[in-house]
């Protein structure tokens, strides 16, 4: 039988190993799986390579994971923001690596991993320093950069509703990178606000089909990064 439900965020992340590559969904605070990230902090795995659009805000969620010294390298498009202090400090001290990837290329590289495409061509970064060292190739007189897929051992994902077989829906712009990361990781771990029976989600409305989901944890009242920060909270 299909058994994807886990009893707790702790049990769902328990086998994330030191040195793992971990995709974390969300765009800034929106769609960020805070409870799973905090479970990963409790768990303590280190030397992680983390893929996220940003580097977290304040001292909760992804920023707390970085601040706890568990992340060796960030792969992201926008590592700074008005409330991002943890990553910039470590980066300027040379204590964390950064691979900067344009946002669209980041999304497409993640999808490519999920779709079995080891590389593709894009005009993004042509003629810029971010194309240095990469293969440039001309098609129909225009230049393109070759970009490789981006795979991960684990994905931490937040969704709105999951059924028992892992079909997912999201809420508004909290969707963002989450469905792509489900496709690209060996093991996809999802926190869902609501867990329902198979058949309770209209098959036409499924955004992530269950085949891309390995583990489901119900987190009925997820905290929101912006609220935590406004409250001056930190983790642990």
């Amino acid at each position, binding site marked *: *039988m*299909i058994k994807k439900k886990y009893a707790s965020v702790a049990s769902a992340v328990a086998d994330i190993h030191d040195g793992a590559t971990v995709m974390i969904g969300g765009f800034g605070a929106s769609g960020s799986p805070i409870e799973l990230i905090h479970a990963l902090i409790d768990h303590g795995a280190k030397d992680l390579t983390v893929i996220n659009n940003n580097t977290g805000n304040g001292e909760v969620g992804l920023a707390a994971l970085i601040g706890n010294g568990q992340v060796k390298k960030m792969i992201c498009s926008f590592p700074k923001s008005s409330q991002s202090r943890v990553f910039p400090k470590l980066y300027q001290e040379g204590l964390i690596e950064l691979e900067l990837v344009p946002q669209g290329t980041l999304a497409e590289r993640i999808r490519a991993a999920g*779709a*079995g495409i080891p590389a593709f061509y894009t005009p993004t970064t042509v003629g810029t320093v971010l194309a240095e060292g990469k293969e440039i190739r001309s098609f129909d007189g225009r230049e393109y950069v070759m970009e490789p897929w981006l795979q991960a051992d684990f994905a931490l994902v937040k969704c709105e509703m999951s059924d028992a077989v892992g079909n997912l829906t999201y809420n508004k712009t909290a969707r963002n990178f989450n469905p792509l990361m489900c496709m690209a990781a060996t093991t996809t771990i999802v926190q869902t606000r609501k867990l329902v029976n*198979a*058949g309770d989600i209209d*098959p036409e409305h499924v955004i992530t*089909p*269950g*085949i891309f989901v390995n583990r489901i944890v119900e987190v009925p009242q997820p905290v929101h990064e912006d609220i935590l920060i406004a409250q001056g909270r930190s983790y642990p």
Partner: protein
Amino acid sequence: MNTGWNRDQMAARAAQDIPDGSYVNLGIGIPELVAQHVPEGCEFIYHTENGMLGMGPPPAEDERDLDLMNAGKKYVTAMPGAAYFHHADSFSMIRGGHIDVCVLGTMQVAENGDIANWSTGAPGAIPAVGGAMDLVQGVKHIYVITQHTTRKGDPKLVDRCTYPLTGPGVVSRIFTDLAVVDVTPGGFQLVELAPGISFEEVQAKTGASILPLA
């Protein structure tokens, strides 16, 4: 007198080797019968290339939905927990390595795992490949269900395929009316004989050497 497995028995035997909880894609013909022989306590989720997970059995004729077909263009139903998606997402599941098992029919399968099941290569024949080349390259485990020989008695398990390949070195296990045979680095390896079938008969009807049971 027992003379091997019939079509349903071949499908039932293949179903036994599919792990519980697998995502499965079934080819046209005998492979379709696998869905009727799921071992008790097991659950498989069926994928069809034209955009659905959670495919269910055919509907009664008066309950057909003209917009609910499988990749063989037959009318089907949707199980609870089904999902619809477009063709690129569907083939991402296949080509991205997310489908666990694909069970295919074949014209030929070789001792090195090559499979030829899309074209005879005959001059003037209309080539048609569908999703076959995507499936054999993308799905984690490629199983074949086939009669051991053609109607004319020619072996379908061969040393090298003479028909144009669908994909090289992709098949892991073969279920025939006579035996279950694995493709190994050393070639064909007998796994199980059908009731009443001897190793010698299987070997005689196979176009390559088969390693016997240890």
